[in-house]
């Protein structure tokens, strides 16, 4: 029983290959059914986005599983042969497969590290797998864990915090000048795409008053409708400059349309309240000399791009933190997987039964008073017989079912029925109510859980 992932992403395959393999949402269910029909494939989840196509599966044998999944991928598109796919694919198993899933979910493997979309896509893929019963105990646990790991990465690192687009960098800068964007006014000069985007971001971050001016008064009125703002005639906008806290400038003009003196005057009229000017136009539309005016803060496209580049670097640094966090979480999952293996479960079950038997015998012996050695052996024999008869069926079932499709389910069920993963809650010997309970289910320390390795050696 192994976890594998076979797939390709923007890092390994060009878009021409990715688009051929991508499975549209409508056909996802059918594809999953096809995947699970392959012999040896027990569980499957298919993640298909524009940047990656990946199959997570639980298989009997790793090598055979790799081959089956690769076949499956090649089958999704007629013009692709399995061999053609090989150079673009990656194959992982065990901890590396789990780590990969966690990294994908936490957006460490994304084109824009830290973007949030992938988590939603993973959730959707999981929903489809659940609906088609393609995922089972192992993948369910794994994907749920991946989602919680992604959330942990998001809250514990600053990976998603920093602006990585030019238009958003403008918002970030505005927040370093003004503490409350809600009471600020934006003046949008020109209808350049980037400036419009920045205006949108500013509005989303609380700005309520927007003034718009464009050379063509028609588009100013149009934009004013869109942003719920006020159009200002182009030849008068310099006079409105003092009204604006944030000026977003991006026109096609080949000369400066906001000159140093005008900004100087605006600052004076504003009684030295800071004014924040962003010039996203090339060639520039705001006189660079503005940067020497006190309380006026001018940033051009290069400044914004520099900020974005710095933030990208910062995100990469934060990614390092996230990687360490993921390593820890992979260990947690590996522990859990180990508990699902049938041999340690059988051993734990025997040990648990043995413990119960011992404790009960001791208790009864002291109550029965003096017994002859024969009587003693008889009582012990009786206890052993009951325990063994009871266990026998379960053990046989576990052994035979372990290799079936629902194997891990059986193991998980056995562990829960017999409380094999519980921490010790009370001392069995000193618990006065213990003898009343028909089967004491809790209260026994489980050496299996604390140190699986030594327990195995002792019993085998």
């Amino acid at each position, binding site marked *: 029983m192994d976890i594998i992932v076979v797939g390709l992403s923007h890092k390994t395959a060009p878009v021409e290959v990715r688009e051929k393999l991508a499975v549209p949402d409508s056909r996802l269910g059918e594809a999953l059914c096809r995947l699970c029909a392959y012999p040896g494939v027990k569980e499957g989840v298919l993640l298909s986005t524009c940047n990656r196509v990946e199959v997570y599966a639980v298989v009997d044998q790793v090598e055979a599983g790799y081959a089956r999944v690769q076949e499956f991928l090649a089958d999704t598109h007629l013009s692709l042969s399995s061999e053609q796919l090989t150079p673009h694919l990656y194959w992982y198993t065990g901890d590396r497969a789990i780590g990969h899933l966690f990294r994908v979910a936490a957006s460490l493997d994304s084109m824009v590290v830290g973007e949030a979309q992938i988590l939603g896509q993973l959730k959707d893929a999981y929903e489809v797998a659940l609906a088609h019963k393609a995922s089972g105990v192992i993948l369910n646990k794994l994907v749920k864990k991946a989602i919680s790991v992604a959330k942990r990465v998001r809250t514990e690192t600053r990976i998603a915090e920093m602006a990585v687009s030019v238009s958003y960098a403008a918002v970030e800068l505005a927040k370093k000048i*003004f503490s409350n964007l809600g009471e600020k006014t934006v003046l949008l000069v020109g209808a350049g795409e980037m400036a419009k985007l920045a205006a949108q971001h500013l509005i989303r971050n609380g700005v309520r008053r927007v003034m718009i001016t464009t050379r063509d008064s028609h588009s100013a009125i149009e934009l004013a409708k869109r942003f719920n703002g006020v159009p200002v005639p182009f030849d008068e906008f310099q006079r409105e400059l003092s009204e604006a806290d944030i000026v977003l400038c991006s026109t096609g003009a080949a000369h400066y349309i906001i000159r140093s003196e005008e900004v100087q005057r605006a600052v004076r009229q504003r009684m*030295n309240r800071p004014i924040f000017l962003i010039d996203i136009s090339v060639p520039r539309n705001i006189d660079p000399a503005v940067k020497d005016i006190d*309380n006026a*803060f001018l*940033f051009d496209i290069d400044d914004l791009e520099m900020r974005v580049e710095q933030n990208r670097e910062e995100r990469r640094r934060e990614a390092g933190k996230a990687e360490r966090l993921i390593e820890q979480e992979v260990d947690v999952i590996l522990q859990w997987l180990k508990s699902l293996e049938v041999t340690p479960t059988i051993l734990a079950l025997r040990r648990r039964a043995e413990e119960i038997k011992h404790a009960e015998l001791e208790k009864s012996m002291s109550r029965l008073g003096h017994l002859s050695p024969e009587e003693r052996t008889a009582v012990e024999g009786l206890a052993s017989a009951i325990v063994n008869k009871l266990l026998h069926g379960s053990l046989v079932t576990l052994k035979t079912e372990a290799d079936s499709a629902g194997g891990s389910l059986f193991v998980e069920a056995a562990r829960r029925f017999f409380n094999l993963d519980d921490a010790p809650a009370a001392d069995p010997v000193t618990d006065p109510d213990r003898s009343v309970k028909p089967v004491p289910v809790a209260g026994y320390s489980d050496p299996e859980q604390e140190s699986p390795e030594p327990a195995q050696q002792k019993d085998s």
Partner: protein
Amino acid sequence: MSVMFLMATMGLYLVGTAFFLAYLLRRSEALSKVAIGVTAIGFLSHTAALLTRMTEAGHVPFTSFDEAMSFFSWALVLVFLVVELRHRIHVLGSFILPLALLSLLSAAALPKAVPTLEPVLRTVWLHVALSMLGTVGFAVAFVAGIMYLIQDGLLKSKRFNVLYTKLPPLDFLDHLNQQSILLGFPLLTLGIITGAISAEFARGSYLNWNPEQTWALVTWVFYFIVLMGRITVGWRAKRAAYLTIIGFAGVILTFIGVVVKGHGPIA
């Protein structure tokens, strides 16, 4: 007892300052949590020191210069904790706590004799308390001014470093500057009035132009002009930052004036 608490406070403020300064340069947020925790404990210890000193001396403990400095430091930390609680601007601690530590150290460096006051001078504590609280306002304005100039410089030169990410927005700092002066100024005014009344009781004259009184009046006039300038002709932002930094220099000169005049009862 009070000395023990005072030593503990100094130790805690020292550790807090170290953590706050480290926080200034590192990207770790955990550092600020430790720094604030240590500062809060230090503040409690400081409060205990003031209270025990009060019971030991049998009167309100701002009658000597070292006590006044200790009270100043205490109030400064209190203001920081209040602002921190409301606005969560940890980096303020990196600037305020060193100042609090310095004033506490200077208090400790001065002789510790508990002065015995003539009964008539017992009302002097009110003058000291008010003047010190006013000074706390100016100290916070000073800190806000320094932070403003740093952030202004970083934005202007487009140096988006760790400090840039930690410093609060410019208009917050300008607002903090304004509020601190608005609070500090009336307190200083009352401090000067009560001081003059005490002086009248003690020496029979309201004003005798000693260095302390002279500088206190100069400081008062200066902050009055700063406040008026803000309201009437827009002396805010960068200019206000510069002015409050200069003003605080005046305050420090007043303190030196007090020391030169001889420590002991202030009147």
